């Protein structure tokens, strides 16, 4: 019986993009459904009644929510192709730790950069860069966080990179100047079809955030 896979997503979401990368890495066919977050579909509300958020993966009718949980699920079900988590328990724990770190820090700090001004924005920028530097240190001399191939942490983090142009523009700073190795890593990831076909155009993302800034009266 063929698998039926549906992804409920909203195109600018770096969380939805993580799932797209994982599905592409595993070579899986799926139906992509765009949600209008100001007018959520009955399916979304039925499949994610707790959070009412995207992304939601629906596999043979059963929903899985929360992007990192979805990515682990995909990795465990389609385990024979392109494993994203390492097999060693200690390495797996390290991968989970750093993916959790990305989740705890980057979205909120990035949000401060595009949605605030003055001192709050400056603090957001400073802390954002500190986080990226820490991640850069964790990458070290490896081509990917996963080692020789992209792994769980790469998938968790790389989707933020298409938001970098927007952060840099609204925050008036250069991420490449502060974290050149990390930017080199994003470029290396983008050479992979699974990543380049899943990430959105940074200028489109910038336009989307510009629209949000206008709506919230920040512009």
């Amino acid at each position: 019986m063929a698998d039926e896979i549906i992804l409920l997503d909203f195109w600018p979401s770096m969380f939805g993009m993580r799932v797209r990368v994982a599905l592409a890495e595993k070579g899986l066919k799926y139906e992509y459904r765009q949600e209008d977050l100001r007018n959520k579909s009955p399916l979304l509300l039925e499949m994610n009644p707790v959070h009412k958020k995207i992304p939601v993966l629906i596999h043979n009718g059963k929903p899985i929510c929360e992007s990192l949980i979805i990515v682990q699920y995909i990795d465990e079900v389609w385990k024979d192709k392109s494993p994203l988590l390492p097999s060693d328990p200690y390495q797996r724990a390290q991968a989970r730790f750093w993916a959790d770190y990305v989740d705890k820090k980057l979205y909120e700090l990035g949000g401060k950069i595009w949605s605030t001004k003055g001192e709050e924005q400056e603090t957001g920028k400073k802390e954002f860069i500190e986080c990226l530097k820490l991640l850069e240190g964790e990458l070290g001399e490896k081509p990917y966080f996963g080692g020789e191939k992209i792994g769980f942490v790469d998938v968790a983090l790389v989707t933020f990179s298409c938001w970098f142009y927007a952060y840099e523009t609204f925050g008036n700073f250069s991420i490449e100047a502060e974290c050149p190795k990390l930017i080199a890593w994003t470029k290396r990831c983008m050479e992979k079809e699974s990543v380049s076909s899943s990430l959105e155009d940074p200028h489109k993302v910038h336009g989307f955030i510009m629209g949000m800034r206008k709506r919230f009266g920040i512009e």
Partner: protein
Amino acid sequence: MAEELKLFRTWSSVFALRIVWALKIKGVEYETIFEDLSNKSPSLLQYNPVHKKVPVLVHNGKPIAESLVILEYIDETWRETPLLPEDPYERAMARFWAKFGDDKVLTSIVWGVFFKEGKEQEEAMLEAMEHLQFLEDELKGKRFFGGERIGFVDLALGWLANMISIFEEVAGLKMVDEDKFPLLAAWMQEFADSPIIKDNWPPRDKMIAKFQALRDAKLAAAASK
């Protein structure tokens, strides 16, 4: 080679308790190092430089931080008496509820209800009730969140079984009403009384004193703004 296992914890941290329970369930021996978070040891700072928090598990010199990450590590390293289910979908559900517990239940109860008063507290209470209802529904037909025996989600939510009554006493209000949440109240009792769990709660009088002081400080800080 003998295993060297150390757990860095505090006397009161419910996150660290998750690790104590898991290691007990697995029957694994370990050394406990109690930390004073106002005076963190060089070892803690070396083993958890990113967050500088407890718990940290150090296995043969290699540190693992973040309690839910540590639980999965323990489950994968000591395979008897599994905490997570075998089936990938059930595993995803377990991870979901554990995360929900930390992100929503704990946040709304501690930061919303317990550390606030007046209108802010009332609003937070409504939100907390919604979250608790999801847990109540999840328990239908089950003795524990893990099914017939304690599992990953029970350990993740286990703090409720002890902390709710402490919060209720200190803040002077009811949070988990047995009439509204019969299954959750029954689970809290059954979990708290379980052989592995009941001997490990921190001393209640110390917890009451600690959380009374924390609440007073938070309310005073808010009032002075």
